[in-house]
C-alpha cells in the first residue's frame, strides 16, 4: 500500500536557486520516511510537478495531480500566487493547502479558511519578529525612528504591509514603502531614496535576484548591512555567498533554526547520501536554509497524514481526512525529538480556530561566510496580529460569501 504525495516544485525559472534545495529537502524527507518503513508502514509515492513559479503552470499541476492515485493529501504550492489560485478551488475540491511560512497571512483563521494551513508562521509573523528585534536593539522604543520596507512588487511582497502599518501606529515609527518592480535587477533609485531619507532600519521582502542586488546596492550606497532585515526567502546562503564580506552583518529572519543540524540531518546523510540516493548533488546541502525548510514542510505533511491515519484507522487517507490531521496536529517536544528535529522546530498544536499552531521565529546574521543565529526566539505579538487576522478573514468571508464555521461545534 502506498500513500500518494504530489510535490509542486520550481527547479527552473527566476527563483530556481531557492526552489531546487527546497524541492530536494522535501524529497529527501519522503525518502527518509520510506527508508524508515513509511508512515505507519505505508510507503510514500511522491511525484514532482514543475511550476517554474508560474501561477498558470501551478494550477495546471494542481488540476492534474489532485485526483491521481486515490487523491492527493494536500498541496504545498511553494508560491504565494499559486496559493491564491488554488485556495479558491480547494473548498470545492476538498483539498488541504498548507503553506508553512508563506501564503495568505489571514488564513490562520480556520473558521473562514477551512482548507488552508499556514503552519509555523506567516509573513506577519516574520515582520513582527523583525520589529521585536529592532525594538530590543533600540532599547524598547522606536519613537521618531524611520523604517523602510523594500519589497518585491507582488502580492508576496505586499503581505507584511498591514502588520507593519499597525506596528508603526503603535510604536510611533515612520514606515517608508519602497516597491521594487520584479525581477529587481535594477534598484539604484530605491537605494538612492534610502540614502536620501536615511531610514534607521530597512526590511527587505525580496526574492531571487532582487536579494543580492539589494545587498550590493546597500554596499554601493554605504548603507549599513546590519540594519537590513530580510525575510527568510532572502536569507539563503546562495543569496549572499558571492558577496561574502560585503554582506557581513546582514540579518534574516528564520522560522526554524537556520543552519542548525539535528539528528534528522545525520539520518538523511546516513540513509540517503552515503548510499548515493540523496536528491541533491552532494550532502553539503544538508543544513542549508531552503533544504531544511523543505524537510520541515515534508515532515509536517507526513505528521498530518499520520495523525489522520491514526484517527480514521485507515492506511491511505483521503484529502478530507488529512485536513482533519492538519487541524488536529499536535507536535510535541517528544515527537520532535523522536523525528530528529529538536533544536530546529518548536512544539505547536493546531485547532479549528488556529491553523497556524504557534509561530516561532528568530534572527540570523551573515558573518561573512555563513549565517549565525543571533537572537532568541520571538513570537508574533497576538495583541497586534490577532485583530488583524480577524479583520482580514472576516472581510474575505464577506467577499466570498463564506459563513465562518462555528468551532465550538466541530469535534
Amino acid at each position: 500500500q502506498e500513500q500518494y504525495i504530489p510535490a509542486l516544485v520550481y527547479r527552473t525559472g527566476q527563483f530556481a536557486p531557492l526552489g531546487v534545495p527546497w524541492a530536494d529537502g522535501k524529497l529527501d524527507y519522503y525518502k527518509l520516511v520510506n527508508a524508515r518503513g513509511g508512515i505507519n508502514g505505508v510507503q510514500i509515492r511522491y511525484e514532482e510537478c514543475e511550476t517554474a513559479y508560474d501561477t498558470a503552470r501551478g494550477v495546471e499541476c494542481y488540476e492534474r495531480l489532485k485526483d491521481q492515485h486515490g487523491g492527493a493529501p494536500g498541496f504545498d504550492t511553494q508560491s504565494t500566487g499559486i496559493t491564491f489560485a488554488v485556495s479558491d478551488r480547494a473548498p470545492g475540491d476538498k483539498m488541504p493547502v498548507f503553506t508553512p511560512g508563506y501564503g495568505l497571512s489571514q488564513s490562520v483563521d480556520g473558521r473562514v479558511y477551512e482548507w488552508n494551513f499556514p503552519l509555523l508562521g506567516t509573513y506577519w509573523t516574520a515582520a513582527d519578529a523583525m520589529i521585536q528585534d529592532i525594538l530590543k536593539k533600540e532599547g524598547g522604543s522606536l519613537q521618531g525612528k524611520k523604517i523602510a520596507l523594500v519589497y518585491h512588487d507582488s502580492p508576496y511582497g505586499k503581505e507584511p504591509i498591514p502588520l507593519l502599518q499597525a506596528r508603526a501606529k503603535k510604536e510611533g515609527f515612520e514606515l517608508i514603502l519602497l516597491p521594487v518592480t520584479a525581477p529587481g535587477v535594477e534598484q539604484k533609485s530605491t537605494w538612492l531614496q534610502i540614502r536620501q531619507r536615511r531610514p534607521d532600519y530597512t526590511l527587505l521582502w525580496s526574492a531571487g535576484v532582487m536579494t543580492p542586488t539589494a545587498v550590493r546596492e546597500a554596499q554601493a550606497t554605504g548603507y549599513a548591512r546590519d540594519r537590513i532585515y530580510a525575510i527568510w526567502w532572502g536569507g539563503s546562503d546562495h543569496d549572499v555567498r558571492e558577496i561574502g564580506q560585503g554582506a557581513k552583518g546582514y540579518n534574516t529572519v528564520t522560522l526554524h533554526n537556520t543552519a542548525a543540524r539535528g539528528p534528522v540531518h545525520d539520518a538523511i546523510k546516513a540513509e540517503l547520501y552515503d548510499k548515493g540516493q540523496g536528491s541533491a548533488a552532494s550532502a553539503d546541502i544538508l543544513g542549508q536554509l531552503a533544504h531544511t525548510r523543505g524537510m520541515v514542510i515534508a515532515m509536517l505533511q507526513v505528521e498530518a497524514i499520520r495523525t489522520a491515519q491514526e484517527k480514521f484507522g485507515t492506511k491511505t487517507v483521503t484529502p478530507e481526512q488529512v485536513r482533519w490531521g492538519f487541524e488536529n496536529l499536535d507536535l510535541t517536544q517528544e515527537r520532535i525529538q523522536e523525528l530528529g528535529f529538536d533544536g530546529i522546530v518548536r512544539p505547536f498544536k493546531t485547532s479549528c480556530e488556529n491553523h497556524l499552531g504557534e509561530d516561532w521565529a528568530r534572527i540570523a546574521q551573515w558573518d561573512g561566510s555563513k549565517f549565525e543565529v543571533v537572537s532568541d526566539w520571538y513570537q508574533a505579538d497576538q495583541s497586534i496580529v490577532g485583530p488583524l487576522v480577524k479583520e482580514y478573514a472576516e472581510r474575505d468571508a464577506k467577499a466570498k460569501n463564506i459563513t465562518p464555521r462555528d468551532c465550538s461545534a466541530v469535534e
Partner: protein
Amino acid sequence: MGFFIEAVLGGLMTGMLYALVALGFVLIFKASGVFNFAQGAMVLFAALTMARFSEWIPGWFGVASSWWTLLLAMLIAMAAMVVVAWLIERLALRHLVGQEPIALLMATLGIAYFLDGLGPLLYGSGVYGIDVGMPKDPVFIFENLFEGGVMVNKEDLYAALIAMVLVAVLSLFFQRTRTGRALRAVADDHQAAQSIGIALSRIWVIVWAVAGGVALVTGIIWGSKAGVQFSLSLVAMKALPVVILGGLTSVPGAIVGGLIIGLGEKLSEIYLGPFLGGGIENWFAYVLALAFLLIRPQGLFGDKIIDRV
C-alpha cells in the same frame, strides 16, 4: 543639491549600463533587420559560461583564480558565443531570408527559449559569481562642497567607460569599413544584398558573434553586480525603451538613449514616485521613450522611415 547630483550621476551611469544591453539589439537590427529578442538570453548564456569556467578552470589546473584564469574563461565564453552565432545562422536565419520582420522577431524568441533552456542545463541553475575585481565600495567626491560629499559608485563608472569605448569602436566599424557597409546593405534588402555577392551567412555569423561579444561584456558587468542567475536575461527588458528612444539603427543612439532613460527613470522614481506610490520607473521609461517617439517616430538617431509612392 548634493543628493540631486548623486541622483543625476546614478541615473547617467545606470543609463550607460542600459546602453550596453541596447547596443546588442542595435547591432543585430542594424545589420540584419532582426529585432533580436534573444539578446537577454545571450547575455545570460555568455555570463553563465564565463562564470562557470572561471570557477572550473582554477580547479582543473589546481591554481588559485588569477587574471589569466579569468582571461581564459573569457576567451572560452567568447568562443562559445561564436559557436552560438554560427549555429543560429546555420539552423535558423539562413532559412528565414527575406521573411517579415515579425516572423524573424518570433524566431529570435524561439532562440531565446532555447538558450534559456540550454544555459542552465549545461551549467546548473544556481547563483554564480563573476569577480573580475570590480571595486564595490562607494567613493565620495566634492566633500568640501557638499555636506557628506557626492557619492559615486566606482563599479558603475568603470562599466560606463567600457560601454563608451565599445560604442565608439562599433560606430567606426559601421561607418568606415567595407563590412560595416555590407551590414547596412543587408539590413535594407536581403535579396539585393545577396544579388551583388554579399554572403549573408558570413555577415550574419559576424554580427551575431559581435553581438555575442557585447552580450558577454554586458553579462560580466551585470553579473558581477547581481550574480549570474536566470533573471539576468531580464536586463534586456530594461534596454528596450533605450533602443527605441535612441533609434533601432543607431549605435550612438544607444548611448544617448541610455543616458536619457537612465536619468529620466531615476529622477522620476525619486522625485515623482513617492506621490504615485512608487515603482513607476519601469513604465515611466516607456512613457518617456514614447514622448520622444511622438516627435521623432524613428527615435532620436534612427534612420528616417522612408515611404515614397
